[in-house]
Structures are given as C-alpha cells and as structure tokens.
C-alpha cells in the first residue's frame, strides 16, 4: 500500500469518526413534521437577505431584457439554433469573438456574438467551465454550469454550448464526461454512453469501443484493465465502468485525456499553475502561470485552448486560446 492510499485510509477513518455513531429517529414523527411543512426551509430561506439580493438581481436583469428588448442573457436557456445533424463550426471560430490579450500569444475569450458572455458581471453567476471539447471541424464546445447554482440538489442546469452558436442545451443527468468522436459527434461517457449531435442526446449502445479524435475510446470494467498499467482503477467497484483511451502509445483515463493536448509537435498539459507545453526539441514553455487549468484541447489550426477553474469565491475561470507555435 503506498503513502497516498494510507493517507486516504486515515482520512476516511478520521471523517468517519467525526460523523459519529448516527442517531435513532422516530420515523413517523419525522414524516409528520415533513408533511406538515410543505413550504418549509426552502420557502423560508429564499427570503433571507442574500436570496433577496440574488432574486432581485435576476429580476432586474430579466426586466432590463424585457424593457429594452436586448440580447438574451447567456444564463437563460435559449432555444438551440441550428439543430443540425452534427456539431458544425463557424468558418473561423475566432470571428465574432471579443477577446483580450492576457500574455504574448494568449487570448482570453470575453464573449461571442451568439449571446454567451464569459465575463458576466455577477461574480457568482458566471459560466463555470467544466469540460472543453473541440470537434474535428474546429467547433469549440463547452460543458458548463452556472456557478453558484450547481451545489443544489438539482443538476438540471449543466449545459453544453458552442462558441459562436446561439443557445445552450441542457445536459441530462448522469451522462458524464464528453469526448469528441471521429465522426463529428460528441460522446458523453457516464452511466451509459450518450451521443450528442449538437442539439439532442440519445443513448449510444454501440460496441465498447469508439473512434475518437486521436485514439480509440473503450468503456470497460475495472477488471478488464488488469495488466494494462491502469493501477488507479483500484478504487472503482466491479460494477463500475471505466472510460479509457488508447492513443496509439498508451492507455489514458478519459478524465486525464481532457488534460493533455498535442498539436504541431507540441504537447501541452493542464496544471494548477497554467498550461505547461513542450515541443519536439523538449524546450518547455508555461502559459497562464498562476492559473488553475481544468482542461486543454487542440484545435485543427494548431492552437491550444484551455479552460480555467473557477474558485468558490467566484475568482478565476475563463476560456483561453494559445496561438500555434
């Protein structure tokens, strides 16, 4: 057992101890209390001072939109336009984008011309970017939550949207991580694979392997990975499924695959301290130093795109483009 595993075990024991022995409860009394207060804590808490401010701000935004008939805000569910058969990209993804240069060769995307504003004024309601997928045609897809609303029990607000394409599409619960398929669609690998065609989701019960950009995706039982050097699947239960990608040289878990990107002989990795890149001659360069990076992906034009994690304070976050070398 390595030190990491030992530490996790000790951590688990400590937390278990903190949780204590549990309690006995009069189930019928609890039931009566619950059923007698149909508008209980949720009703009460929505009128707390904080909620009043938040609700007021939302109302103000909605009212402003209604009054001036302006562009719908990105935190509204929009009807996805262009419900095409596959996620297709604008001719050049940079056209129509408002950006700023944050360091030589690196742009931060502020907003597009399709109603997505990544620089929303309210610190708790900006787009929180969780996953980045670049399709074979160069379309930039972002899986996102509205930060500050994603810690409630409902996860209905997880969405996917594309730069330059109006609207966003709600991601069904439990569909997991996205990966770009070679045929242009996006596969979400969670409880069971689900295919996203740019406008809707449908189950994909196909073979256990899918051609993806840069490799082959396999969804396997943890036991099937024995001997493949995937020793970090030990914590998975036998009934789970593990998504791994064979990139032609090694196996890599889907989650980690979204943290590395290769293009034009340059290989880049998402780190807690920016995007670390090395090129064919092993000369390294780090972009966005000091920024917590959640994921990277390579675009057909040789650029590397990165999404930054947003802190609980609302700081950080963002979408960046690193120019080709």
């Amino acid at each position, binding site marked *: 057992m390595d030190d990491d595993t030992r530490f*996790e075990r000790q951590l688990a024991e400590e937390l278990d101890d*903190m949780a204590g022995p549990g309690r006995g409860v009069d189930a019928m009394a609890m039931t009566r209390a619950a059923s007698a207060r*149909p508008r209980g804590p949720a009703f009460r808490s929505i009128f707390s001072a904080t909620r009043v401010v938040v609700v007021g701000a939302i109302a103000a935004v909605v009212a402003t939109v209604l009054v001036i008939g302006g562009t719908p805000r990105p935190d509204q569910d929009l009807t996805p336009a262009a419900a095409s058969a596959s996620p297709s990209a604008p001719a050049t993804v940079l056209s129509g984008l408002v950006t700023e240069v944050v360091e030589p060769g690196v742009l931060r995307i502020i907003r597009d011309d399709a109603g997505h504003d990544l620089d929303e004024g309210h610190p708790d309601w900006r787009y929180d970017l969780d996953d980045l997928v670049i399709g074979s045609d160069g379309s930039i897809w972002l899986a996102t939550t509205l930060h500050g609303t994603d810690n409630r029990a409902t996860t209905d607000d997880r969405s996917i949207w594309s730069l330059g394409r109006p609207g966003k599409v709600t991601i069904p619960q439990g569909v997991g991580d996205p990966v770009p398929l070679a045929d242009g669609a996006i596969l979400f690998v969670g409880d069971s694979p689900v295919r996203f065609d740019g406008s809707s989701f449908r189950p994909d019960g196909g073979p256990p392997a899918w051609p993806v950009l840069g490799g082959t995706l396999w969804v396997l039982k943890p036991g099937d990975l024995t001997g493949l050097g995937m020793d970090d699947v030990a914590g998975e239960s036998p009934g789970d499924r593990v998504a791994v990608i064979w990139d032609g040289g090694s196996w890599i878990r889907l989650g980690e695959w979204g943290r590395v990107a290769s293009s034009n002989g340059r290989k880049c990795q998402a780190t807690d301290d920016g995007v670390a890149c090395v090129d064919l001659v092993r000369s390294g360069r780090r972009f966005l130093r000091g920024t917590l990076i959640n994921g990277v992906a390579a675009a057909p034009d040789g650029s590397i795109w990165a999404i930054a994690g947003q802190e609980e304070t609302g700081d950080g976050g963002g979408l960046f483009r690193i120019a080709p070398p």
Partner: protein
Amino acid sequence: MEAISGAVRLDVAGTLASAAGGDEIAFARLVESHDAAMYRVCMAVGRDHGIASDAVQAAWTIAWRKLGSVRDPERLRAWLITVAVNETKSLLRSRRKRSLTEVSVDATSRPGGLDPAVGVSSIDLRDLLERLDPDDRALLAMRYVAGFNSTELARALGISPSGTRTRLERLVARLRQELSDG
C-alpha cells in the same frame, strides 16, 4: 439470489413511488432507511449536532415535496444525502458558524501520535479537517463517509466526474501538503 435482489429493487421502487405520492407510511420507511446516513454525513460537514439535526429535518421536508423528481430508486440515497449536505452548508453560511467546535471525547481518547506508516498525527488531521471550508469538508464527507463514487459526486456537485476527481485529488494533496508542512 438475483431474484431476491430484484425483488428488493422492486420494493424500493414501490416504496419510493408510494412516498412520492403522499403515502406517509412509505415515507416513514424511507426515513428509517436513510436518516442515520444523512445525519452522519451532516455531522461530518457541520460539526454540530444542532446543525446536523436541523439540516436533516429540512432535507426530509424538501424530500416530501420533491421526491417525485427522483425517478431512479438507485439514486435516492445519494440524492437525500446531497440535499441534507446542501442544507448543512446553507445553515453554516446563515449562522456564520466557523469551525469552532467541541472536541469529542472519542477524538481525545484515540491515540493522537504519528501514524507510523504515513507520518500524520490524527489530532493534526482532525484539526485541519475542522478548519476546512465547509464545501471542501462536504466533498470529503460525501466521498469518504457516504461512499459516493465519482459519478454520484459529480451529480451532487453539478460538475463532470473528471472535474470531481480532479477537485478531490487536489484537495487530498493539499491536506497532505499542509500536514507535512506542519
């Protein structure tokens, strides 16, 4: 054996459907089955009996109203715990309670020396956990007390499973680092 587990699943689904439809006896069965687990996770997050009790009570009230939104019985346990944890965090925020808590007798009576294998004092670890941000403690409690897998954590947090794993790995690494820095 498979037939029995299938029957149990049917029973859970039936109980859930009845409870969602307003059957108090069925709802009480759910309370009996899940209340203790919800309370334990809330205790680990809230570090206070009153907060944990209020949070679980609030969670059951929410469950009474929204049980119909849980379509898959296998997700019921994680859903209930997630609601209770969110209520705990909400109560902590509203009471502006910091990590000032009593040290349990159990904690002081347990050996507090260095774990020879890892080199971490359990008292230091407890102290660090109590000082953690409630959101971080909630993540750890859902993983290590409730036993959520990454998919369940992802649903609870509203982020992707990979994002959840990354967040958890970073948090555990940070804890180790802070403990080794002393």
